[in-house]
């Protein structure tokens, strides 16, 4: 029983951070599934979410979890706007063009953050940041537990939205077949704008949830973009449930690798997992088949 408590400790830590990865990955996968766009600006919206929480905290003294209510609509509007202004023009262009356009947007966002907030790391201090709950020998930080709970609620809400509403049905129809969806009267350009907005709102939520846990620097975005790619490839590109599984798996792999192998390579374990999945099962661990040459 000696090794069990540390194992459970790592497992729970991995699952809690993995929940946030899942939240980031779900948005990316949703956007890819519906619009066939690989969104390189995804992590930058996580960064914008972090800075939104910091600004709300410093100016109005808002608890980061309250500023979710501000960040999510901002992310939604910003995402829908960017889709309408930039990406909607590229709807019939090659996947390379949309990829480059989002990469350009990512550079613009991270450098604007740099110009506005400067390079020094910023953080939020919340009184419950250092508190922990002990559960069967496993210590769980309150801030991370709250983050996990909120993630769960947001993902549940997304699931209800996609499976139980007329909007969700239209989104799934557009993902399956854009032309078919148009033929039955779905306004697909509108669905694209709403889905991109939704994805960005999810990324902003993830950023807000991360704000009390981590230091924010303007360049933090690209590392989350990379994590989101890993999550979605692990779960299968375009699969929303897959992204949830991929996120949890990435969190656990990072935690286990860091504590049992070498902590310096913490960020590399996910990438190795990504390359192994590409090698043996490119459709993702939970996905359907992929076209090979």
């Amino acid at each position, binding site marked *: 029983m000696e090794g069990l408590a540390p194992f459970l400790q790592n497992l729970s830590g991995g699952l809690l951070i993995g929940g946030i990865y899942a939240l980031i990955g779900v948005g990316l996968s949703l956007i890819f599934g519906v619009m066939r766009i*690989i969104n390189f600006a995804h992590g930058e919206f996580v960064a914008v979410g972090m800075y939104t929480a910091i600004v709300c905290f410093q100016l109005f003294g808002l608890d980061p979890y309250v500023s979710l209510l501000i960040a999510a609509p901002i992310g939604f509007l910003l995402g829908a706007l960017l889709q309408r202004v*930039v990406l909607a*023009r*590229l709807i019939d*262009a090659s*996947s*390379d*063009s949309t*990829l*480059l*356009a989002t*990469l*350009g*947007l*990512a*550079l*613009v966002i*991270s*450098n*604007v953050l*740099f*110009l506005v907030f400067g*390079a020094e790391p910023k953080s939020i201090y919340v009184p419950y940041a250092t508190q922990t709950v002990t559960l069967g020998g496993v210590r769980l930080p309150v801030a991370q537990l709250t983050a996990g709970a909120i993630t769960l609620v947001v993902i549940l809400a997304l699931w209800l939205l996609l499976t139980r509403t007329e909007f969700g049905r239209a989104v799934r129809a557009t993902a399956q077949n854009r032309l078919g969806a148009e033929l039955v009267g779905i306004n697909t350009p509108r669905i694209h704008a709403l889905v991109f907005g939704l994805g960005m709102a999810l990324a902003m939520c993830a950023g807000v949830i991360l704000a009390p846990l981590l230091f924010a620097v303007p360049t933090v975005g*690209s590392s989350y973009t*990379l994590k989101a*790619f*890993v999550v979605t*490839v692990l779960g299968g*590109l375009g699969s929303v449930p897959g992204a949830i599984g991929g996120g949890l798996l990435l969190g656990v792999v990072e935690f286990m690798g860091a504590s049992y192998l*070498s902590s*310096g*390579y913490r*960020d*590399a374990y996910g*990438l*190795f997992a*990504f*390359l192994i999945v*590409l*090698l043996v099962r*490119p459709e993702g661990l939970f996905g359907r088949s*992929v*076209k*090979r*040459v």
Partner: protein
Amino acid sequence: MTLKRTSLPWTWLGIAGVAALGATWYFAFPSYLSLGISLLLLAGWASAWDLLGGWTGQTSLGHAAFIGLGAYTVGVTATKFDLAPWWSFLLAAAFATVLAFLWGRLTFGLRGSYFVLSTIAVAEILRLVAINERKLTGGAIGLFIFDLKEPFGFDLFSRHTEFWLALGYLVIVLVVVALVTRGKLGYQMRAVREDESSAQAAGINPVAVKSWAFMLSGALTAIGGCIYGIFLSALQPQPMFELHLSVRIALVAIIGGRGTLFGPLIGAALLTLAAELFRNTFAEANLLIYGLLIVVVVLFVPRGLMGALRARAVRRRYAKSAGG
């Protein structure tokens, strides 16, 4: 796309012109040698990137991996094994070829965006290796090259030698690109870029063609990385393997014009100039210009500057030949 390619003598004349312009820079702006070296290296990398990204249509956002590989090969072999730099250059090119071969094996068999995603992952893994394998690479503090063997009595740490080295590098890359793209491989590369299935139907093996382009592109980039390593002489994982360097190389080539011989060079000149002009306005946020420009290029000039010019010339020639 184009009706008639520029004839061979004009290509050589263009490359000679580039060499002459470089030499003019050396004598006209002796106080801007470092800027010149950075520009020449960036242009060389972008042209090498273009073999894969432009001519073969496989966007890579991980070419910094080859630059880091080249620079660290020179650094490690010079400090640990006292190897002469010209052997390190060959060794770096060999390493890069092997890396590109394995990497291509892993991803070129898959369609879709898997290759571009893998490029970021591989470059990032190499960066983490450079940070963590302290015994070999000096970790995050870095590796310092104190002395190098002098080929033919040239001091490699002098900016003057480095400038000629970088100019020679760019000219060699341009010559290789010109020769390769005119040969059989070049036509196969373009066929794969335009339509993999049709290329396959014509008896071309897309995986092999992409792998060859990648190995060539990687080896050329790594040699540029060797020169970069000597130029900096203090190697750190942070600027070497970083995503930003990969992104800059790709964007320079795309803005200048993918799949054209001189497009990447023009892109490099333009963006280096822009970065210098706005240096004081944006300080370290100079990638902002790259971001704005790439969005504009993707939306309005999808073939890049050189590609747009060429398309225009072809239209005019066609109108003339059709009697219009």
